[in-house]
């Protein structure tokens, strides 16, 4: 398994100084009885930065967030927040702002009382408290709704209450657990942009846990991908997209396919020689992760007519398993050489039981390790 180092200057993440200000997790282990939920997870979040933790369900992302909040015991590793080791500190004394998946807005308090809750618990004087609540209502555009009860609010408004409540205490880190999962899919796009705007206005080190790739790509300035409780890759969205550590990363993040390849002079040879692609058709890029591989996103392949199929091996004949009409395109799932590939073609394309595929020039990448 490939594990990328946490404080990595290449990936655009600041190092060293982060440990004094933001959030740092080192070699975290979380166990529930005999089950290991998180193993060897390391990450760091600088102030004003947003890091997304992503992975399929059960990958340990929520446990990582709960460990940072102090809601699950840590079996190993350290959690540092604003220079303090908080690994075994009581959740009430960590100074974290938590926005749970269902928002957990207190149903028996008004919006304003919800936002003031943490300030009251900390004994902030009334005048200061009112001023801070006012600021938070402003930031989350809830001023009009300050005296409303949670059952009179929409899902998006409740999310803003939870966010305002968490930010009111000026936390050292803001923790968002699946921030958009509880909302209508139609609303998510707008609310994602709205959330992104509000996060940009804070100086908090923000950690977002999500299973949604789009959320991670658009909200995270860096993304940590987990599988089975272990870290797979921690990098910027761009680099995860362009240079995935392995086939799982490519598939999970963008549905792309990553194939082992060999370079034979002017050709990239894939699938045991069944497919020979001229290198001039490919975007040749250096990779940080091991061997030579061919990266195919959905727009990397095209279907060619039978009579035009080149006979030099540069076309791959594949069985069509599934055709899906998505409005602006046909999405094909095809199988060749034991691999399932996704191909997006124009809606008018003739598709039979099998198709001949060639790479769209410049749209498929050949990742080659540095010598």
């Amino acid at each position, binding site marked *: 398994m490939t594990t990328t180092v946490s404080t990595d200057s290449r990936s655009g993440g600041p190092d060293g100084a982060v440990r004094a200000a933001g959030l740092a997790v080192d070699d975290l282990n979380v166990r529930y009885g005999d089950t290991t939920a998180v193993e060897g997870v390391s990450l760091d979040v600088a102030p004003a930065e947003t890091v997304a933790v992503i992975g399929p369900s059960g990958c340990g992302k929520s446990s990582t967030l709960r460990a940072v909040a102090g809601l699950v015991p840590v079996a190993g590793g350290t959690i540092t927040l604003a220079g303090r080791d908080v690994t075994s500190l009581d*959740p009430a004394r960590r100074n974290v702002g938590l926005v749970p998946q269902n928002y*957990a807005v207190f149903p*028996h308090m008004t919006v304003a009382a919800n936002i003031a*809750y943490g300030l009251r*618990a900390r004994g902030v004087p009334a005048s200061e408290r009112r001023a801070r609540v006012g600021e938070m209502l402003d930031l989350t555009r809830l001023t009009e709704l300050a005296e409303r009860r949670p059952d009179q609010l929409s899902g998006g408004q409740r999310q803003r209450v939870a966010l305002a409540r968490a930010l009111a205490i000026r936390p050292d880190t803001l923790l968002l657990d699946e921030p958009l999962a509880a909302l209508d899919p139609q609303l998510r796009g707008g609310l994602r942009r709205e959330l992104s705007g509000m996060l940009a206005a804070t100086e908090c080190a923000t950690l977002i846990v999500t299973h949604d790739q789009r959320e991670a790509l658009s909200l995270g300035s860096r993304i940590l991908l987990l599988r089975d409780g272990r870290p797979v890759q921690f990098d910027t969205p761009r680099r995860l997209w362009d240079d995935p550590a392995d086939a799982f990363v490519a598939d999970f993040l963008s549905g792309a396919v990553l194939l082992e390849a060999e370079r034979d002079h002017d050709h990239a040879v894939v699938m045991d020689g069944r497919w020979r692609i001229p290198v001039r058709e490919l975007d040749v890029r250096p990779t940080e992760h091991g061997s030579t591989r061919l990266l195919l996103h959905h727009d990397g392949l095209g279907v060619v007519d039978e009579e035009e199929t080149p006979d030099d091996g540069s076309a791959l004949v594949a069985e069509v398993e599934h055709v899906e009409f998505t409005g602006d395109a046909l999405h094909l799932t095809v199988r060749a050489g034991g691999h399932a590939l996704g191909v997006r073609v124009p809606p008018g394309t003739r598709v039979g039981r099998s198709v001949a595929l060639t790479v769209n020039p410049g749209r498929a990448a050949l990742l080659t390790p540095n010598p």
Partner: protein
Amino acid sequence: MPVRAPARGRAVPGPAWLAALPALIVIGLFSVHPVMVMVAGSLGVGRPPADEGLTLDHYTRAFGSETVRSALLDSVLIAGGSVLLVLLVAVPVVLRQADDDRHGRGGVATDVLLTLPIALPGIIIGFFAIVLTGRTGLLGLAWGGFSGLAYTFSGLLVAYMYFSLPRVLGPLRGAAATLDPALTESARTLGASRTRVFTTVTLPLLLPALIETSGTAIAVALGGYGTVATLSEGVRLLPLNVANELTTGYRLADSSALAVILAVTAVLALVLGRALSRLVRRAVAA
């Protein structure tokens, strides 16, 4: 054109009262009729010997009697006090149980032990009290102060706590299970101590259920006969007086009057619990 599902082959449902009829018959037979007989008897318009003609004498005599008044007061104090004390035990237990249930922990043995008294007749609970805190009881051997406690006000209070425990635990457990753990977790991360979380989040949200459960449990405890019958040496509770009027001298009308007073007190506890719970729920959640 309106789209209509084909009606073929579907039975036409009868009126709603038809479905409720069996229940109505049972309620009529076992509640309404006896209550009417009881009320009639207490007003002197029942069957012999309670047929001397319409009168409120039996009620004035009941409320005029020092024994009855103190029995009524003790009944209310024992039933109310034992249920309130049980709440102090029950709230931490149900919160713990809800937590265990969520994590798939929790033992059947504890559940059975805690809900066992609901299956036991009051007489058996009285017997337990005697075995433990009677004059030659087990605890009395350890410390003299426990000896004979069963027959005192405090002894009765403890016995009725045991009697009420499962009647409070059952409904409260359901209410505790509906509390979202994310609420208390959020409150904790916001900097609130465990005590503060309990008083500002857990308790307010649990309060309506606490009040309603108490009302019902107090109503049940008021009518409990077996326990006090077993331990009826010093403190007398109203159900004993009801039985006494019948067994000593068959004073049907006086007994009926006392029974009506007891029933009204119990119903009052129940209704008050419901009403207050609804009020608090509205105040807490609206």
